[in-house]
Structure formats: structure tokens, C-alpha cells
């Protein structure tokens, strides 16, 4: 891990790579990339003859919502107390619960392997600035084509917008769907919207056609009735 980090920093100056350790027994540590240099770093990882990480296996998103952390903090303050009839300031230590909100983010995780060398996995990850309006990350599809559908899926289910993706549309949900179902705070709508299909246009035309035929038939009937009423000679 350290070696890869050093190699990246030598190749891409100012890359801003950090190692994120994984406390799990699996021991799969990862590299956190700064989104500003991510595409250069990714291209380096792919093209470097030593690393040769030519195979992007898995790309996925993770949602980290805003976290409210309650901490118990010991606070020392001066309180005025009445001691022996005279008011004197006394120092006192009180335990207070402080709440702070750790801002959430969306994260994209990529698992890289090397087909040429047979090693792996190298995990790289990027974070967005927040979960609401700054959800852009650079797309790695120009480097590894296998990210194409997977980044579309992340965009669909998590709402990360990948800059530079050639065809960023929803993958699994329909285009008119508004929310991002894999987010932790997603609430299912009471009634799912009607899903338009490719056949709507055809069905509409068929309906119009049927209506026209019916109107024509009605017109024929009316003129026939008129004929009968008025008689053939009229």
C-alpha cells in the first residue's frame, strides 16, 4: 500500500492520496483519491508497468449520511456559590453531553486487479463534498470501460453525478424516477408513478385511429338512418 502511494505521488505531483486502513480481519486497505486528480492517478495505475491494474472489477457507491455524534465532555466552569454566607466563585467540573453533526457524503469505491500480473486487489475510493448539491465526481469510464454500466448504476441508485461519463442515464430505474433508492434516508413513495413505456406513442395513435373509425361508422349510420327516414326517392 505504502509503495503504491509513493509511486502515485512520484508520478502525479499533488495527487493527494491517503491510505485508509480497514480494521476488519480481511485487511483490504484502500487508497483515498482526491477527485481533482483521480483520472490522472487512475490512468497511471492502469498504465504503470509495475502495477498494471488493467482490470476494474467492481465499482460501487456507499452512502454515509450526516451523523449526529453525542459525546460526553467534562467542562470546568466557575460557579458562584454561597459559602458561609459570603458569595465566592468556586470551580466545578460538570459532565455535559455535546452534540455535533459530522457531515455526510457519498463515496465511490473501485476494486482493481491486474490481469497481466495476476495481483490485486487495490481498492481506490473517492468522496463527494456533501450529499445534496455537490455530488460530482470524475468518471473513471474513460480509463476503464467496465465502469460504464456500474457508474450508471451508482448515479441511478445513489445520485453521484460522474463528470466525463459518456452516457450518464439511469440504469435500473426508469428515466422519470426522481429519487435515489439506495440512499439510507430513502422513503418509498405511497404510490409509484406510472411508468411510461416505448409503446405509449403507438397506443395513443391506435386509440386515435380506433376513435376515427368509430366516428366514421357513426357517421355512416347517421346517413343511413337519414336515408331510411327520408326515403329513397327524396
Amino acid at each position, binding site marked *: 500500500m505504502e509503495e503504491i502511494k509513493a509511486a502515485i505521488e512520484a508520478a502525479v505531483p499533488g495527487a493527494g492520496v491517503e491510505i485508509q486502513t480497514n*480494521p476488519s480481519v*480481511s485487511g483490504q486497505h484502500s487508497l483515498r483519491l482526491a477527485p481533482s486528480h483521480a483520472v490522472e492517478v487512475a490512468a497511471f495505475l492502469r498504465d504503470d508497468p509495475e502495477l498494471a491494474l488493467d482490470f*476494474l472489477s*467492481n465499482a460501487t457507491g456507499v452512502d454515509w449520511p450526516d451523523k449526529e455524534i453525542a459525546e460526553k465532555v467534562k467542562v470546568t466552569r466557575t460557579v458562584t456559590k454561597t459559602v458561609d454566607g459570603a458569595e465566592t466563585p468556586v470551580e466545578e467540573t460538570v459532565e455535559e453531553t455535546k452534540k455535533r453533526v459530522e457531515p455526510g457524503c457519498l463515496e465511490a469505491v473501485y476494486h482493481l486487479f491486474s490481469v497481466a500480473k495476476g495481483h490485486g486487489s487495490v481498492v481506490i475510493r473517492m468522496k463527494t463534498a456533501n450529499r445534496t448539491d455537490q455530488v460530482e465526481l470524475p468518471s473513471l469510464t*474513460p480509463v476503464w*470501460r*467496465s465502469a460504464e454500466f456500474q457508474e450508471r448504476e451508482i448515479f441511478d*441508485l445513489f445520485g453521484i453525478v460522474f463528470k466525463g461519463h459518456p452516457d450518464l442515464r439511469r440504469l*435500473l430505474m426508469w428515466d422519470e424516477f426522481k429519487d435515489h433508492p439506495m440512499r439510507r434516508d430513502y422513503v418509498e413513495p405511497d404510490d409509484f408513478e406510472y411508468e*411510461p413505456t416505448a409503446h405509449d406513442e403507438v397506443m395513443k395513435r391506435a386509440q386515435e385511429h380506433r376513435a376515427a373509425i368509430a366516428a366514421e361508422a357513426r357517421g355512416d349510420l347517421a346517413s343511413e338512418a337519414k336515408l331510411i327516414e327520408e326515403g329513397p326517392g327524396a
Partner: protein
Amino acid sequence: MTPTGFAQEEKQRPEGWNRPPVIEPENDGDLLEVAMGPHHPSTHGVFRMDVALDGERVIRLKPVFGYLHRNHEKLAEGMSYLGSMPFTDRLDYICPLTNNWAYAIAVEKLTGQEVPERAQYLRVILAELTRVQNHASAIGFLIQEMGASGTPLMYAFKARENILDLFESLTGARMMVNYMRFGGCRVDATPAWLAATRKVVDELPQFVEEFENLLTGNEILMARTQGVGILPAELAINAGVTGPMLRAAGVNYDIRKVDKYGVYDRFKFRIPLGERSDVYDRFMIRFLEIKESLAILDQALKQIPGGPVMDSKAKLRGFRPKPGEAYGRIEAPKGELGFYLISDGGPNPYRYRIRPPSLINLTILEDMCLGQNVADVVLIFGSVDIVLGEVDR
């Protein structure tokens, strides 16, 4: 979904070596836009390809997914680790046992769980039986799509049925097996089951030979498949294609050899490789892989030791892995099947992600189909070998 996104895409199709090429129509006039699917017989499920045709040539092709989407990943985040195990059967429902194994491997990596020797051998036996029946039916479906309606597919299904009988007698179900556990397997195989497996495995080479003689020399098959749907090796690696598709392109990458998970390092087997990376190669690779699987089965049935099939210390329910993450993968019959799990220390996975080989192998479907006849799209699509339960999850 709008009928086709072609008009919008035409404007913003970027340049780059890993993009599908732009093909110019030869004839004057408008392109014919056809929606193949969602109920096209060749898709074996609900999947749509929006195809733009110039005469019979495919000019553009857009796959449309999501008809079978049930957000399995979200469901799994709301239940315990063990609770997702039966759901993995329903991903690629042709090969439920390899799905079980991939998930079990990911959780075992997350918790550091050991697996007893006998369970490892059972897993290998079941995975290789799964591979045999998957490849046989994949070949059957491919020939079916070529117009040989019924006969080859029923040949494959006859062999598959014998294997499914084995699954049923061991696990209680033909397809929804729910068999593997973190730290072993649910029930032990009886000596009678092993004897029955031995009998099936001994009979399989005869089936393979018969099936091969029936098909490989067929002139129509050769005319339809050779030189069709070529996928360059470089693009295949870059696009994350795995499994028989990748090896048909001549790339020697098999996770059984690379990761040596389970006890695969104890068996002697070869990795068949293709040369031309066309539909015929993908078809032949599956035959050769069946033969290698039979070799592994033969060795595994000879070597299988006694002992428990479950680690006695393994906790099935209510365990809480340490916070952290793990990615476990296996060589499923369709390609690399991986599970990515993040634990926050709770009884449920915080994040549960499946790396579906079926979906990612479709990334290059457009590249392979461009410039081909529309009738060949069905063949090329069949040679990818997907299951929609895994594509849409």
C-alpha cells in the same frame, strides 16, 4: 423510458479508444428503430435491446435494463447476514450454489471464519457440477437461438436434470438450495450421495462426447458463428469482461488459478483459451471447460476427506463483524462473481454489493454487434450467457 435515446446520444458521443465505433449507414433514408424485447424469446427474461438498423445491419444498439430490478442490495441491508443467503439463490438462478459460495467467501473474509476441509471439497464438487450444467444449458440455449429448436437444448437439459437431482437430494431443492453457511455447509453429504455423484460424473463424459459430436462439426453452426461478434482481448480486459468470454479472447485469467480460493490449488486442471474470440470460440470454450470441470470432479471425489462440514465455533446468527469491509470473489460459471460488504459493527451489513458478471459482460454488447446482421445479434447475445435475475438484481 423514452423509446430510444439515440438522437440525444448522437450529439454527445465522445471520442476515445474504448468507445464503440460510429458506423455510417450505407443506404439512404431513415434508420429503422426496433425494440428487441422486453419479451423477445432470445432474452430468456425481460431485457430490451433498442436497435437501429440500416437494412439488416446494426448501426447502434442500446441495452435497457431494470425490468427485473428488485433492489436486492437494499433488502439485504435490512436483514441479518444469514438472512440474505436464500436471496443469493435468486440472483443467477441457473447456478445458485456458486452464488452461495461467493457470498459465504465474502462474509468469511469479513469475520475471519475458517472452513473445514470436507466442506471445502463439497463446495468444489457442487461448484463444478454447477459449472457443467450451466455451460451445457448455455450451449443448448445458444443453439436454440440459432434455430435448432428443442433437440440440443433437451440434450443439455437431460444432463442438467441428473445434476439437479443430486442437488435436490443433498440440499432439498433443485434450484433454491440455500446450502452454504459461513464456516461450512448446511448438511453433510452421505456416502450414498457421494456414490450417486460418482455415477453421474462417470456418465457425463459420454454425454459431452455425444453432445459435441452432435454440434461442433455442424456446417450451419460454423457458418453462423465463425467470425461473428469478435471481441478484441484488450477491450475485453478493459471492459471488465470475465469468465468464458474473456478466456475465449485468449486471456489466461481464471480466478480459480489466480486467487486459489477454497482448495483449488490441490487439483490439476487446465485453462482452455480461445484464439479468435468469436461466437464459435465462446461456444467451444464451454465444451472444454466442462471437460476440465469433470477432471476436477474426478479428483475431488477421490480426495474428499472425512470430518465435520461446519466449523463448530462458527456463529450463524446474531454475529456482529468488526467494523470494516471485505471483497470476496469466485469464478462463477458466468464470470467473476463478487460480494462487497461493509460492516459498521451491527448485525446487518451496512453495505452489501454484488458484482454481477452478467451485467458487466454486457458492457461490450454494442461493440460486438455493430455492423453485424440483426439475426446475429441474437447469437452474440446468446454467447454472452447471462441471467436476468443477476443483471437487474
